[in-house]
């Protein structure tokens, strides 16, 4: 009788604590919301530097915008490609052509929703034409546009419009193997 008087309340307390501690971890005051990804502004000259600089690995650049439906549609595929190749053999950056006002709002929110962790930039220029012409004279600036450069900064693959994942993987495999 004495045993049950002590053990049952103790067991109940332990049981309640067991529920309470994880709940506090999840919802308690100490819990911090996941920070939004940092999106850095980039101008035409910095973009040129980013693409033309000597690097050890090939570079994949995806131009996109939150207002662009095919850009949003293809993003999960790009995130998969990023997770597969960037840890070992590829550099991958995204360049948003959204408005500068969205650099701390819509753009990182979307990247966050996609669990995208590749370095993210937003083209911060008053005139996008020099940047578009530098990237590709034949590109009209329509989005999305994806460019793959080898480690020397030479363009080896491009696709304007929603990317064909198999085709992009093939291009990456070729250039990654070459650089091995």
């Amino acid at each position: 009788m004495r045993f049950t008087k002590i053990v049952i309340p103790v067991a109940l307390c332990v049981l309640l604590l067991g529920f309470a501690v994880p709940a506090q971890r999840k919802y308690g005051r100490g819990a911090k919301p996941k920070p939004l990804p940092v999106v850095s502004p980039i101008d035409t000259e910095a973009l040129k530097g980013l693409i033309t600089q000597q690097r050890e690995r090939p570079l994949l650049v995806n131009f996109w915008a939150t207002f662009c439906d095919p850009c949003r549609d293809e993003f999960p595929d790009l995130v998969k490609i990023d997770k597969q190749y960037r840890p070992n053999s590829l550099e991958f950056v995204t360049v948003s052509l959204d408005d500068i006002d969205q650099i701390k709002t819509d753009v990182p929110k979307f990247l966050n929703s996609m669990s995208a962790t590749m370095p993210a930039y937003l083209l911060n220029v008053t005139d996008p034409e020099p940047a578009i012409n530098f990237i590709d004279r034949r590109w009209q600036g329509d989005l999305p546009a994806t460019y793959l450069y080898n480690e020397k900064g030479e363009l080896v693959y491009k696709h304007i419009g929603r990317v064909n994942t198999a085709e992009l993987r093939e291009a990456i495999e070729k250039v990654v193997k070459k650089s091995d």
Partner: protein
Amino acid sequence: MRAKNLSILFAALFVVAGAVLATGARAEGEVPAPPAIGATIEDFTLPDVDNRDRSLKSLAGKNGTVLLFIAVQCPVSNAYNERMEKLAADYKAKGIAVIGINSNVAEDAAAVKAHAAEHKLSFPILKDPGNKIADKLGASVTPEAYFIDQNNKLLYHGRIDNSRNAAQVESNDLRNALDSALAGKSVEKTEAKAFGCSIKRA
């Protein structure tokens, strides 16, 4: 009998597959090349938002015409609504007409009409079913402008100006082209990359 039915079925499938391939042959993202500056744009007829057929000839200005590919949902195109309306008003008196063209497959005539009313766009807007005119002109994005003279000769193709943000406009490329043509001068900058939302083709 059964074999005959099967062969008819296969023949029908073959014809359907052929038709699908023929109509969907263009790869996604691939837009036909635009006509060269100086080329003549053929007259065309498209339905307006009330489904009345309107020809380019019937809407053209006596000193030239601006064809503007625009959209209902594109935020870049929408950022230009006021500027497009002002352009149409400013140049109407100078004999240059502005015609909007909506080639987006997902935006029907009713949506285009409602959008024009909401944003007080008073220039005529035509619907381009099957994006035939967008293909003919090689239009990729919204907004994208084509300026043709009174003989339908292409004088300028590209953006309206350098920035979707009206406060950051430094280069009024389309207006400069119109002003040069009105002054009897040749257009200095005949092309400028149009930046915006891709036209959603059928």
